[in-house]
């Protein structure tokens, strides 16, 4: 597909979240919209959407789940054919669920992701990070995104799901197909079908060969009000864990690595004061929040002067909200011991990222392990770093030397 984009005439009325410059660095654009007379921008591109950029507006929309529904949550409309065929009913609960079903869709998986539950993955994640570093530490150079960050969440999630780790390349390709190639409908559909077919195979295998201490088995056996949960729910949760648990977290790890490569003073600060880690991770998540989600407007409403119509898409620009100067002092600055940080990198309200405790564990362990073994490093060429954006923002190639 040739990509001949119409130049953006005016960010407030014609923003393009897939514009290459915006993908690379969306923050000046968010700021321009946020500080304008029209902090909720609109575009007709990709069948149209609204883009709130102020913290207060993003949070208000996230809280109003009856008006701003999660019928669709991607920043692009579904690809053609997505809602047809045998898998049309497979969504990604609970992220794609609205109350009342949202309650049980979420309740069933929350215990898996509590801080006390995810703690058991810390040592495995550390071992994995060390093994990745072993591969390149003697070379004096590595791609912090492609050789390191990209491999961490996919293996952690595959371990959690009890699916073959050797399939990492396929999982990565499918997830990128769903989240990173959003303007190519065929790639998206194919990736989605691959994911669903893979998990149907996993479910069938478990019916024949029962397993113990197995997450997919537990989901298959889960009951709500005395009835087994539908298979679409099981497949949907598996899909969500793969799609939402991989690209997002590796993007966050990659952005943090990119930051650390450029900021020796922050590496030093963490070395000298390891107690700072938990606070520092929250600050890095604020500044480099990777995820933008969408909502669908339920009924015609005027929101902050914007005439929103039923069915309109609203992009929940959490990265923009996290840099609103009305909420955060010196919002573009990374202050590792920031005192007040009500960041919404994981969203707000009933759809708070279910995997947030796992994500922050992975980001922390990835950074700690790298910094312990490679305390000094820098970017090979700052202009050569490549990024993806749209739904998830983060580096895809980030060469560093040490």
């Amino acid at each position: 597909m040739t990509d001949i984009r119409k130049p953006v005439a005016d960010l407030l009325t014609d923003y393009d979240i897939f514009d290459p410059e915006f993908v690379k660095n969306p923050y000046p654009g968010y700021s321009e919209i946020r500080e304008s007379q029209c902090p909720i921008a609109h575009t007709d591109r990709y069948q149209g959407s609204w883009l709130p950029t102020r913290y207060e507006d993003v949070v208000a929309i996230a809280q109003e789940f009856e008006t701003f529904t999660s019928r669709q949550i991607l920043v692009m409309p579904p690809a053609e054919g997505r809602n047809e065929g045998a898998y049309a009913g497979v969504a990604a609960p609970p992220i794609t669920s609205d109350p009342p079903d949202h309650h049980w869709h979420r309740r069933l998986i929350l215990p898996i992701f509590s801080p006390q539950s995810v703690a058991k993955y810390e040592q495995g994640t550390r071992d994995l990070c060390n093994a990745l570093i072993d591969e390149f530490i003697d070379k004096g150079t590595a791609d912090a995104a492609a050789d390191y960050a990209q491999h961490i969440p996919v293996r952690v999630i595959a371990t959690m799901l009890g699916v073959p780790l050797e399939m990492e390349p396929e999982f990565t390709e499918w997830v990128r197909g769903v989240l990173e190639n959003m303007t190519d409908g065929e790639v998206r559909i194919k990736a989605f079908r691959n994911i669903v077919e893979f998990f149907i195979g996993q479910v069938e295998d478990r019916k024949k060969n029962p397993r113990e201490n197995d997450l997919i088995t537990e989901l298959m056996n889960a009951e709500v009000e005395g009835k087994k949960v539908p298979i679409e729910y099981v497949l949907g949760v598996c899909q969500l864990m793969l799609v939402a648990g991989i690209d997002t977290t590796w993007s966050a790890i990659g952005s943090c690595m990119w930051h650390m490569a450029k900021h020796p003073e922050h590496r030093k600060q963490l070395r000298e004061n390891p107690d700072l880690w938990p606070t520092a991770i929250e600050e890095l998540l604020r500044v480099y929040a990777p995820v933008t989600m969408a909502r669908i407007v339920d009924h015609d409403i005027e929101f902050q002067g914007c005439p929103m119509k039923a069915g309109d898409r609203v992009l929940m620009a959490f990265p923009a909200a996290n840099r609103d100067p009305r909420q955060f002092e010196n919002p573009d600055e990374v202050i590792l011991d920031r005192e007040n940080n009500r960041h919404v990198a994981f969203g707000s309200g009933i759809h708070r990222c279910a995997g947030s405790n796992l994500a922050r564990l992975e980001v922390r362990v990835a950074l700690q392990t790298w910094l312990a073994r490679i305390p000094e490093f820098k970017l090979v060429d700052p202009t050569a770093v490549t990024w993806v954006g749209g739904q998830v923002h983060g580096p895809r190639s980030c060469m560093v030397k040490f």
Partner: protein
Amino acid sequence: MKVSVDYDSCHGHQMCAIAAPEIFGSDEIGNAKILITGEVPEALHGKVRRAESNCPERAITISE
């Protein structure tokens, strides 16, 4: 100082437990749980204020 959590507003961000792990923990589904009864020890007042000012849902109330 006393501290309370509005459990209807809490959605389990766990920012309170990061700021003040001596006072806040997690229940079975990852929502906030207060680990102490009665007064917050004075040495932890700063951490509890930080927990309050880091909660994205504004679910924490401090009374002094």
